[in-house]
């Protein structure tokens, strides 16, 4: 399972407006809920994770990977893709502000590795991220992700 296989237009939101980081994580979680990946409880858990452990989920400049642990609130592995019109602060020392929140749900610790290596290839490519930041529709996000051919682990 790679990123472009997994993502559907229903799980992508572009040009979203968020009040603050909690709102941004909630909206990213709503994409998981809308696509049957997880329930609202999982969204609450993602927010609680940041409240408890800090904004470490902002793993690269401008990019947050919202997630919690595998729980009964997760129905299947999947992701939601929330691109913000105006970046929000998560309180991260180096990587604020955040324009992209990827919400991740997993059933266990290693059943989603194909998805993760595909995600790593995308989030590690600054040129690709720049074009994703300019994407003006979910279809365009998918098109960019599909045409980059991020198939399997990058060498």
């Amino acid at each position, binding site marked *: 399972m790679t990123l472009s296989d997994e993502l559907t237009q229903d799980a992508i939101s572009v040009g979203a407006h968020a009040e603050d980081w909690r709102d941004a994580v909630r909206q990213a979680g709503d994409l998981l809920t809308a696509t049957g990946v997880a329930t609202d409880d999982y969204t609450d858990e993602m927010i609680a994770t940041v409240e408890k452990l800090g*904004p470490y989920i902002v793993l*690269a400049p401008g990019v947050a990977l919202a*997630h919690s642990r595998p729980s009964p609130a997760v129905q299947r592995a999947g992701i939601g893709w929330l691109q913000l019109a105006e970046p929000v602060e998560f309180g991260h020392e180096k990587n604020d502000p955040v324009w992209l929140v990827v919400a991740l749900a997993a059933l266990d610790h290693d059943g989603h590795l194909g998805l993760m290596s595909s995600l790593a290839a995308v989030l590690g490519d600054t040129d690709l991220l720049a074009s994703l930041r300019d994407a003006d529709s979910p279809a365009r996000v998918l098109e960019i992700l599909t045409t980059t051919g991020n198939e399997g682990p990058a060498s």
Partner: protein
Amino acid sequence: MKIVAVCGMGIGTSVLLKMNAEKALRALGKDADVEAADIGTARGAARSAEIVLTSAELAPEIGEVPAKVIVIDNFMDVAEITEKLTPFLS
């Protein structure tokens, strides 16, 4: 050589950090075993590891361990991980 990548939950950020650390090690031609761990199991995992990779927020949570704790700012930046790992790879 054992390296542990630590994040809060062990399914997301630490998995990406592990993958990028493996890329950095391959580029350096070094052989090491990299595992992802959540903060709950990190202390135990860190006892048997030489190096721990984590974020600035989580580093204090790991506490006193014999391993060298390296803080990575950008988990997606293989160059940063390579640069910070290099001094500790014999």
